[in-house]
């Protein structure tokens, strides 16, 4: 059974929040992966919804490409919303 595929687990802590990656596990298929995720990652009421995705289905950026991918954004401060003042009476921003 060591050839069971790896699944990535995403849990939504409560309504209104997004699903967050919490870890991974092995399972023979998607249905069992969901149940294993319930047993491994939501034992202490961590969530109200679970997604499982087979790890092989995820296309990830490579650490080797880190510089080319992310460094060009480092010196473009004008992309950050920091160049205007927030009016004092605006709440929730």
């Amino acid at each position, binding site marked *: *059974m060591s050839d069971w595929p790896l699944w990535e687990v995403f849990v939504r802590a409560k309504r209104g929040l997004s699903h967050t990656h919490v870890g991974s596990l092995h*399972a023979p298929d998607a*249905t*069992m992966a969901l*149940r*294993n995720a319930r*047993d491994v990652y939501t*034992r202490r009421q961590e969530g109200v919804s679970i997604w499982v995705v087979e790890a092989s289905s995820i296309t990830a950026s490579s650490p080797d490409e880190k510089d080319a991918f992310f460094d060009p954004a480092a010196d473009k401060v004008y992309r950050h919303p920091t160049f205007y003042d927030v009016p004092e009476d605006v709440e929730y921003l």
Partner: protein
Amino acid sequence: MNDTTSRPAPVSSPGRAVDTSVPTGDRLTAAYLLGVADDAMVYAQRLAEWLTNAPQIEEDMALANVSLDLLGQARGLYPHIGGLDGTGRSEDDFAMLRDERQWRNVHLVEQERADFGFEMARLLWFSAYQVELYAGATHSADTTFAAVAAKAGKEVSYHHDHARQWVVRLGDGTEESHRRMQAGLHAVQPYLAELFDDDPVSRAAAEAGAGVLPSSLHDVVVTRVTGVVGEATLELPSDSRWRSRGGRQGVHSRPMGHLLAEMQHLARSHPGATW
């Protein structure tokens, strides 16, 4: 599992080694609930043995969760039973300080851990039984039992689903998994009749409105299991000629003593120990 070693000791003359009297009132409810609680407690211990022994660490967790749910059900009932029977015994008194003859669980739950197919067959049947038992118990005249049953109902539904998932996958899997899952169903068969046997205490408790009549659960439980077994391309074994009996009267099979020795060792070696 070794059939030759797991058979129960023969019942000696009733009235001597075995207490066959039926209590009344609160003591009757207590006597009945002890069977329910002991089933949960003993099976919790057996399932806990799967920790580090299941096919995958994920299954270790799954079975440990089931075990803890069952332990919680027993804990919910033991102090209540101690109150009803007038002894004031605590949950630890019940779980750790009773000898074999004082336990009222069925033989099914005390049988030794065998292969995974056997365990899924046992869990499939026992969880189906508990689903129907607790559904009926929500109408119990004993409000504590009704409350425990209402909470436990959701837990055992999940246990049943977990067993169903595995029975279907193993039954409808490879040639070997099919053969071993079928063997598991055969191995548990002799222990099923005891779940649905109307022993004097259960019958009296049902008549008093506190308990659920075991025989009334038989057809719905069999229907539930039959559906899963069919989905798994397995066959339900015919009734076995030899059937376990005596658990509700405190007469147990050989594995029970070993189970208690392991479970109670710490509490008995260090009385009153806390951590």
